[in-house]
């Protein structure tokens, strides 16, 4: 077991301020967060017409690769595209799903908040305010990040991420295949996150990962197959 020295020093340090303890997010998403990552104990809502699932999975990816555990609760996890999750960088061994918690979901949530670093909840019935407050307090106390998909949470959360624009690239009229989607993500929130931040990124990019817009190139909203010269892309076989 070889640990980087600063990581070891971080673990040996006696006290860390809660605000300094961050869960990493993928590089292109970092500028949406005040500290460059998800603050432990905070709550994030992801809610938009399209792109909710990808964005929520992308938020988990970096922390998951760094060894954190994540859990998904609620019916959204039953329909979750696990292949897409793996492509976005979520480590599936440390990503557990509890699709049908039924009436026990508050107990399940409480258990998960104690044990894992990120809990995603979505697709449940509207949460009662009393449950919401209790779970939020527990998340704060344990330093777990709670990500809420959709609008089932009754209270305002620390941050809210919304996909405001999305354009797919790679499909024409009867040719090509879906290659990448350029999205604009807007983050609003309270406290340190109260300043509105926005970024454009590929979600997903060409290989299914989340990428900064410069990394892939091309104008937003191109609905054309990829340049045949740059890659031996199979889409050209279809297109030509």
């Amino acid at each position: 077991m070889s640990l980087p020295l600063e990581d070891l020093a971080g673990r040996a340090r006696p006290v860390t301020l809660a605000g300094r303890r961050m869960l990493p997010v993928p590089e292109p998403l970092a500028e949406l967060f005040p500290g460059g990552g998800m603050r432990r104990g905070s709550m994030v809502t992801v809610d938009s017409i399209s792109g909710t699932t990808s964005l929520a999975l992308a938020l988990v990816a970096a922390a998951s690769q760094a060894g954190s555990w994540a859990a998904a609760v609620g019916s959204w996890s039953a329909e979750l595209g696990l292949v897409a999750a793996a492509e976005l960088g979520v480590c599936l061994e440390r990503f557990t799903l509890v699709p049908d918690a039924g009436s026990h979901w508050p107990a399940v949530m409480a258990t998960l908040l104690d044990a894992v670093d990120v809990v995603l909840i979505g697709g449940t019935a509207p949460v009662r305010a009393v449950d919401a407050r209790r779970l939020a307090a527990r998340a704060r106390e344990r330093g777990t990040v709670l990500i809420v998909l959709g609008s089932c949470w009754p209270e305002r959360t620390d941050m809210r991420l919304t996909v405001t624009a999305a354009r797919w690239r790679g499909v024409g009229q009867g040719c090509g295949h879906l290659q990448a989607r350029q999205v604009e993500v807007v983050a609003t929130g309270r406290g340190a996150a109260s300043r509105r931040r926005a970024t454009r990124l590929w979600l997903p990019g060409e290989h299914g990962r989340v990428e900064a817009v410069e990394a892939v190139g091309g104008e937003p909203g191109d609905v054309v197959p990829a340049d045949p010269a740059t890659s031996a892309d199979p889409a050209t076989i279809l297109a030509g």
Partner: protein
Amino acid sequence: MAGRTLVVWCPDWAVTAAGFPASEPVAVFHANRVVTCSEAARAQGVRSGQRRREAQGRCPELTVVAQDPGRDARAFEPVVAAAETFTPWAEVIRPGVVAFATRGPARYFGGDEALATQVIATVDRAFAAGCRAGVAEGRFAAELAARATGATARTRVVPAGEGAAFLAPFPVQTLDQPELVDLLIRLGIRTLGGLAALPADAVLARFGTPGALAHRRARGLDERPLLARTPPPELAVTAELDPPVEQVETAAFTAKSLADELHRRLSGLGLACTRLGIEAETEHGEHLVRLWRHDGALTAAAIADRVRWQLEGWWSTGAPTAGLTLLRLVPDEVKPDQGSQLGLWGGSAAADERAARAMARIQGLLGPAAVATGVVGGGRDPAGQARLVPWGDPRQPALPDGARAGSPPSLPMRRTAGPAAGEAPPWPGRTPPPSPAVVHRGPAEVVDRFGQPVTVTARGELSAPPAWVNTAGSPVEVVAWTGPWPLEERWWDPAGRRRRARFQVCLADGRAQMLALESRRWWVEATYD
């Protein structure tokens, strides 16, 4: 060396059991063939295996009785009871033959001869049937000894060490293994002595296990030692709860000591438990069982936790309607304990352990299948590639995957070279990444710009470009589309055969979906959310 064995043999038992004396001509039939006949019938030429007509031809006054193994066994019970007055270890070989080891009783009664006489007398008193007794090494030799007696000398004792010599003149037919006997006779081996003279390893090599068994018998050894097996030690631990326990706390306290006890037993044998059965019984006679699986070894604390969670789970669902009267822990699957090592700095191993405990706890609440992790394997569509594995089960994909290990994505229609021998399949026709983030299946309607349903011919030609897609009540315009990608899977398998044409569409509201046309119906297969 086989132990000295006494066999009590009642001649023509089926006839005796049917209630006829040996002096009457009686034959027991099964499927129109003689199974057993009385002494009187045998004297007139009736033999086992004869047809009924033939037997009646030789002995016109023959009484015909149908075979009834149940009757034979019932009638034999008094004989067994009589034998059991000598030893508690009497073994019924079949109705008509009972055997027991003479080691204890023979010393008590003053030798094998005296014991055999005593047994005959006792059995006669219980059930006058003219039984015979034989004593020899091993059951097989003892039974032959009993059969070798006559009406006058009803016992036969083969002295110790002379078993093989006693057996040698008997024909091989006494082995009761028709196929083997047939072969032995054709090879010129007609007596047990001839068989016993062959080297044991050569017999095993030529005739296999049945031959080796027969060889052991012919040498006067018992056949059983070949199947030597140490019975598995009893590992389950049980606690009876009196008075019945109504509270989780109290039961959990008992569970803790049970877990310690179980763990002590297991570690004493160098074993670790990977699957644990938790059983409980209630005052109302309910029997609750749940199996728990764990990848690593379960420690005493982990066992106690699981029992506690399971009890909480049962109580929260109201399964036990009364107090618990019994709690049992059964190690369902054990393996040699190889131990596990935590990381030096706590590190991820501690976090993993914490997460694992939480998952196990939720399983206790909701059932083992409620917590799962995903595994991505091979396959051609997003739903088939991923598989949910219940927490604690081995993470194996449903289908093997060769393409995922860094090779370029394959597109439908692209021809790839066949995989090398032993390589995992490449799944041509797999949709390229990015994969859809939501995998669901629902009916859809797809129409062209004139409102006509879009179809695909058998040759994969599209009737018209799709213009509108309706999945949730209101039609949405298609801004870009691609397809059809024909996919014919498992054409050789009538049950698993699927023939589809797949499409990707971008809709005016920003969504992108994968659609499929299968048996003239449109489906949404996934959404690129």
